[in-house]
């Protein structure tokens, strides 16, 4: 069983990244993570952190302009939708796990993910199929 300090050392940076990606605000991310950890600390005897999976690695591919547009679009999404996208595709949680985190049904997770991806899809650089041989 992990100690509080050990947990924070292992997961603090990831929590900050998660909070930042969901909120889009550095100060809010710091504040919220501290607040959440304080809550966890008070109840540490009742918290059993689960082992985490591997980290996400990204391969460069999409152009920087598309990523910039996507980041801007993320900021405009409803918070629930943005949280679903970050948990599902950044934290790599499956639908059931995202649903547990957000206290909603897996179908709600899927519908939010679908809506968010549909919005993003409009930004994906399109291939000019007519130009293909």
């Amino acid at each position, binding site marked *: *069983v992990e*100690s509080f*300090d050990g947990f*924070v050392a292992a*997961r603090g*940076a990831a*929590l*900050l*990244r998660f*909070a*930042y*990606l*969901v909120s889009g605000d*550095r100060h*809010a*991310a*710091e504040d*919220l*993570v501290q*607040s*959440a*950890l*304080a*809550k*966890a*600390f*008070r*109840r*540490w*005897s*009742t*918290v*059993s952190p*689960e082992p985490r999976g591997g980290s*996400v690695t*990204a*391969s460069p*591919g*999409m152009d920087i302009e598309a*990523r910039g547009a996507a*980041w801007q679009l993320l900021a405009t999404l409803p*918070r*629930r939708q943005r*949280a679903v*996208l970050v948990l599902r*595709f*950044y934290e790599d949680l499956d639908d059931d*796990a995202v649903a*547990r*985190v*957000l*206290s*909603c*049904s897996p179908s709600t*997770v899927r519908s939010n993910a679908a809506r968010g*991806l*549909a919005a*993003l899809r409009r*930004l*994906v650089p399109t291939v000019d199929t007519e130009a293909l041989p």
Partner: protein
Amino acid sequence: MTEDPAVRLLRETLTAHESEAPEPGNLANAARSRAAAAGRTWWSGVVAAAAVVFVVIGIGAALVRGGNGGVKIGPASPSSVAAVTHSPAVSTPGSAAPQPTVDSTSSPLWVPNRPPPDGWKLVSSLGVELAVPKDWPVVGAIAGCDPLPAAFVERGGGAVAGCGYTEPATFTLVQIERLSTMRVLGSAGAPATGDASAGRAPGPSPSPQPLNRLPASFTERALADGRTEVALSFEDRDAVVLLRGPDKDLLFKVFGTVQLADLDSVGCPAVLAPPPVWDRADRGSVPKVGIGNADRVTVCAYSSGPGEASPRLAASAGLTGSAAVPVLKALDSASAGRNPDADPADCLPSTPELSRLVLLLHHPGGAVDQVQAHHDGCRNRYVADADGQSRVTIPLLQAAYGALGMGFATNVAG
């Protein structure tokens, strides 16, 4: 399989921006300082999750929750609340039911005596009881992504907004909460939109007046979205009833049902009584807790707030028929003895027991057996009655807290 280009774009975008997140610094110490300050982290409530998810929930909840403003409690409207006084010699069925911790030499015992209107139900918390339409959900924590119902009652744990929400102008909220909590959160009387500049009409100046021998105060405000918000605070009880919704007549109908309840309508004392002599961890060799022929269960959930001498009733429910079965079945299935203590390396010896369940098992002949369930903390977890002791189990906690619409926190296994 080729990855969806939109998913790929999303992953790359998020990864490209992750480096902009703040550095961790000494997060652990910062968190400890906040915990010691007993600020909003204490009050924001806990929807139990024994995992890293617990932490993430806290973050997600805070991220998506709207902001709140302040509150001012004004002159009382004594006619809007009724309560009756009884002598402390409350007649409670059976011999082992807990009695309220009321000083009979100085305090009257308040017991609600008015039934709910037809089609309504009673809801109790923190020594206050009120009635709402039967179809209104009663929850201990706001936690969900699904659309808000038209109305709900929140009591027993404070709000954790799992996905966040903005209250629509059609939404009705009834909330029973510690007054001190509301002040810490700054949420009593706050604009429903979370916008402090939402432009509500100015409220009356604070001037608490006696209400049925208790100091209580009342405010009514018009919210910017057209709804009305009314609040009734009981300073002596550290309790507040807050209502806001579009139908002012309905709000005042609910408001008119508010009663004080040192012992509520299902038989739960507002303050947890001192433990019976048999309620101790080291019982030696005793049988498991028996349910006999019990066919009804009263569930009383208690929580402790900062500075409170005794745990206070967070939520209660009277379970009959099939609703009582899961609790009785879980209780009957538990093994004798107490739960093993958690690893001392992860116990915080200074952490007090913050929540407790008391179950009243009602038998057809009228007898009532009291059961104490200690599930909080990392040691001394057990279920006990006058004759026996059993382990606390997750199915029992799920059944009991589920009936209350509350989350719970525990690290007992199985």
